[in-house]
């Protein structure tokens, strides 16, 4: 272990990692640079943009506001962990279908924030979506298609659940 670095046990997208980290490394840096999970983006240094949002033990958090060492023992889910190209998560499919993105830079963070929101409120109103995504910025879309995408995703998730219950 490098001098001054600390051990870290963390589960990311279901895989356990035991690496050492610099004590001041942010979770966003650890994910991008140590694990190569570059789907988590960094758009600012004042925790404003939300491009870095991940799920930490199921809750949406801005990974640039968390030190990697603070995530010791936690489970982290990044955009790479929510679905695969063959089996997209409902939120991913909805963003793609509903043109909820343009440059795509904010998209992983927005989707993670949306997943966090939909876990708490499976059937959000438009107002709740607006309020729930308040912490993320998108410069490209003007947000309207993103709101539509989240509504669409809520519908898809509900349908998935009905199917699961029906099985």
């Amino acid at each position, binding site marked *: 272990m490098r001098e001054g670095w600390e051990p870290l046990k963390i589960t990311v997208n279901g895989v356990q990692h035991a690496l050492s980290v610099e004590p001041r490394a942010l979770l966003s840096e650890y994910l991008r640079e140590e694990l190569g999970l570059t789907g988590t*983006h960094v758009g600012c240094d004042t925790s404003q943009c939300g*491009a870095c949002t991940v799920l930490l033990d199921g809750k949406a958090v801005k990974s640039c506001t968390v030190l990697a060492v603070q995530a010791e023992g936690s489970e982290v889910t990044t*955009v*790479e962990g929510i679905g695969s190209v063959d089996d997209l998560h409902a939120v991913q499919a909805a*963003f793609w279908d509903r*043109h909820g993105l*343009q*440059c795509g830079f904010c998209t992983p963070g927005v989707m993670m924030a949306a997943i966090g929101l939909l876990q708490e409120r499976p059937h959000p109103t438009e107002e709740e979506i607006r309020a729930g995504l308040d912490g993320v910025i998108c410069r490209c879309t003007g947000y309207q298609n993103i709101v539509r995408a989240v509504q669409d995703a809520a519908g898809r998730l509900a349908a998935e659940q009905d199917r699961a219950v029906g099985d």
Partner: protein
Amino acid sequence: MTAVGESVRRKEAENKVSGAAKYNDDFTVPGMLYATLRTSTKAHATLRFVDKRKALQMPGVRAVLLGEDAKVLCGEVLADRPPLAKGRVRYSGEPIALVVADSEAQAMAAAAAIDIAYDPLPVVNSPLEAAKPGAPVIHPELGSYTKEQSPIYPQAGTNICDSAHIRKGDMARGWQEAEVVVEGDFTLPQIDHAAMETRSARVEILPDGRVQVFSSTQAPFEVQKLLSKYFAVPQGQVVVSTPLVGGAFGGKTSVNLEVLAYMASKAVGGRLVRLANTREQDIATSPVGVGMQARMKLGATRDGRLAAAEMAYWLDTGAYTDSTPRVARAIAANCTGPYRVPNVHCDVNVVYTNHVFTTAYRGFGHINLTFTVERIMEKLAHALGVDPLELRKRNVLEPGDTTPTTVRLTRSNLGDTAKCLERTAELIGWTPGSHAERIGPHTVRAHGIAAFWKTSSSPPDAISGALITMNKDGTMNLATGTVEFGAGTKTTAAQILAERMGMDVDQIHIHSDVNTKVDPEHWKTVASMSTYMSGRAVLEAAEDVIRQLKSVAATVLRCPPADLEVGGGRVYLRDDPQQYVAFKDIAHGYKYQEGDSIGGQVMGRGSFIMRHLTLLDQKTGQGRPGPAWTVGATAVEVDLDTRDFTYRIRRAATVMDAGKVINPRTARGVVMGGMNMGLGYGSRESMLYSDQGEVLNGQLRLYKLMRYGEQPEYLVDFVETPQVDSPYGARPIGEHGNLAAPAALANALSVAAGVPIDELPATPEHIWRATKGVHR
């Protein structure tokens, strides 16, 4: 029609939603070195000394570069910008030193250890102030700078680094005819592009001299040419790669981090060096969008026909020119807005200030001219007592009229402004007369409308190319040089090809990155011109492919090529489609039963260059600035609280003449995004400077953007008047949602508050100030 006009999903979007999409700074290579900048804290000062000795001793530091280490002066039009300040700093945020180290943290620590002593100089904080005789001169060397691109007309000994002019008609006669004359002063601040991906560049210089550049640029071919020129490297030895770009808005057209990263790599023996902006540097060190002060006088007959217009602009180009001289000409060329004004006198001055330097910003000066023209139209409507919508409709340019630069307009090159205005009014629920409606004890509701037009203002020799290679299975690979930063340019190109080939768009393979070594040049991915320029090249390449396919098929089917058609992955006899040969059987040559073969791999090329464009005459402005215009209108509905002047933008509508909508959902999305940016500018965004010229809001916590929940309901529609020389008649639409939104908002707020709002952003405080002393 199979592909054009369909909302096909973006080709690159699957990678974007799965997190696999790569942006420039997503590549960390072992052994890569990190560069960082030390920037100026003063807006205007001489550098008494810059001492790097301590920094050089710091752990991990490989090199520290200062102004004297850079021999070049940079600039697209005028070479006025040293990559690192030499002797003098001209804006706060200007790079002074460049540190290369093993890690970013080490580079930053060393940068902070550089000792700098400033001797402050008087700060010039606004373009009007800067243009006054006797103002402190920011570039005493102005007369000696190299002109890289004409036209540019610097006035040595002043801060006026360029000017553009329109002289049309007879002003004396115009003012004589004018029975009603209105005047106004208009102000817009500089604005940051604020793309969510900050700019970054990596450079490696290989032992054989090849320079590998990786950059988040909108203009990889410009990076290639400028690096080749600045550092005397043969152009083919400079290879620029650009992956997906996370938003650009004009801000990534300027070539600067690449120059610094090259210098950094050179200083460490050619090793790979990364230089990436922090958000703060992205706002305060890299260029922003131009600000302005403007004055306009407009005269009309009593029945509301425009007779004469005189306007003067002072553009706040900041400390350096970059592409702002070209912005000035774009403003001049379209200075009347989409209205018929027979007599025009327009001066656009580009003025140095001690602000962050500027480059293209989505709209290329058209937000500025639209704001000026549409605010004065509103004043004129008021003075004449006519409905603002009606006044606009009465004066829109029509086929047969000429533009300020005397281009003759046709239905094809102009489109239909009146139709756009009508449809916009319909969407927003316009009631003639524009009155504020009281809807609550302290709330009034009002509408504002504004029209826009824009042409490309690109160089007359801008080029674009397309290469098609066929795969054995009959599908096609399409290579173009356009950058994908969110507008869906590559998908559009694929749709155009698919349409021409009568194929499914899924059978066209594109790559979303650009590499200057293998992709044909596309001038710059700007001015919303990809569909026109790249589309024309794609269609020409498609014809080339079709010719080759038909030639082989003619032999196979024993008929003249002229009897053949393509479609559905086949070449078939026009009179008997059952007789055909499949693409897959001829894409890589046709093999007879005996094994002997003809043909070879089918590959098509298409090459486009702008046609008939000319530079504007320096005295009169005559010339042809672009192939055609896109016209449209935006309307806004606001609810204003009359106690504290807070307001909510409830709805916003934009209708533009798209010629032909190639991808409806993408088009709507891009227009909504533009409107959102425009309303952000209108309501809150600006670069804020202290008295001393320091940037006060260099981070996203302070630089206010539209956030979720603040957006109004967006209503978007299109009129389709084909531009006949463009693929499928399509016109540019990428910037245009942005153009009239600030003006429409200001018009609505002026009605709601009962006072003219002639300066943006219209924050509640600004509105309050405007109303001070005015009784309601």
